């Protein structure tokens, strides 16, 4: 009786062809070579950033962080313009829609919900799918992380953030999208160069995202900031910086002579 229970139907395993079947690394390489051509890749049109990251690719989650008023939103708006004709979906929780539209020097094409709902990941996913089916968006900007979960009700903020970030990463992979998540930093001294360890509430943001970009203002100038590629899982870049300047309402890279 015991023997019957332990009988293994080897034919079942030999003939198994399900989507989760096991394959060799060589077969996997062939499959990926066939499917990799569906990847979407966009360039920031900021030469150093494009060189360091070789563009942004679908399935990636990029964290943009920096101290208050460091230019995170402006940097993301500049990317929105530079990514065109690839369309972006914006969840701008920090500004009213009217304010947000006015911050662009010239209104570019992007997609946005008419109304925003905070603290609801299912709602966020629904709107992303709507924008994908209606407008074929390639990029999503979320400004910012702390509007995606209810801090008052959160029992463990750090774990909640981890869940949110993982959820966004799954969406990026499942729908071939590039997701930019803006995150605040805890208070840092303006004289110090911020690091990804300064991201507010959670180190899980850094560990779960593919790329980390950090911005900070150059205090002795009116319109310049530094951008640091803190880490990039794909290209292996660590802590490389470049300078940007605000020209005509958008950030552009200043290249060394």
């Amino acid at each position, binding site marked *: 009786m015991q023997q019957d229970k332990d009988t293994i139907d080897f034919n079942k395993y030999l003939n198994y062809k399900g*989507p989760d079947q096991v394959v060799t690394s060589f077969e996997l390489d062939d499959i990926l070579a066939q499917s990799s*051509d*569906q990847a*979407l890749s*966009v360039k920031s049109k900021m030469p150093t950033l494009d060189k360091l990251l070789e563009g942004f690719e*679908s399935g990636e989650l990029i964290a943009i962080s920096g101290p208050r008023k460091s230019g995170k939103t402006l940097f993301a708006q500049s990317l929105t313009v530079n990514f065109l004709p*690839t*369309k972006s979906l914006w969840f701008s929780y920090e500004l009213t829609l009217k304010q947000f539209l006015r911050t662009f020097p010239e209104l570019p094409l992007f997609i946005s919900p008419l109304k925003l709902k905070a603290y609801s990941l299912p709602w966020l996913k629904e709107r992303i799918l709507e924008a*994908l*089916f209606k407008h*074929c*968006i*390639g990029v999503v900007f979320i400004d910012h992380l702390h509007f995606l979960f209810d801090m008052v009700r959160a029992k463990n903020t750090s774990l909640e953030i981890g869940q949110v970030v993982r959820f966004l990463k799954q969406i990026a992979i499942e*729908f*071939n*999208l590039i997701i930019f998540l803006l995150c605040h930093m805890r208070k840092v001294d303006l004289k110090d160069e911020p690091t990804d360890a300064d991201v507010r509430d959670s180190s899980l943001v850094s560990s779960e995202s593919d790329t980390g970009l950090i911005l900070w203002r150059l205090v002795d100038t009116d319109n310049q900031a530094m951008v640091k590629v803190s880490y990039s899982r794909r290209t292996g870049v660590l802590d490389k910086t470049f300078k940007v300047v605000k020209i005509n309402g958008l950030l552009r890279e200043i290249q060394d002579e």
Partner: protein
Amino acid sequence: MNDAETIERANRVLKELEQELNTYQPLAWGIPWDFEAVERIEGIIALYHDRKRYWIKLLAGASETARKILIEFMKCADLEIEGAESVLFMIQGKKQHA
């Protein structure tokens, strides 16, 4: 990816789908409605879902022309899935269809 490439890839998957469907044929009404038939129809449904997922991925960053074609493909896939599910329900005796 440009328009022509996206459409070419979507079409290529459609052709692959037709070939893969042969694995599950014949789906003739004449075959006995047994366990094998159920497996075949479930296989067809899974194939269409799989292809739909691929087409959804192609939507990201696609043009309006490509979008319309991809949505048409997905609508057709949904009809096929609906039809296959009706047959499946009949075989399994879970639902009666006229």
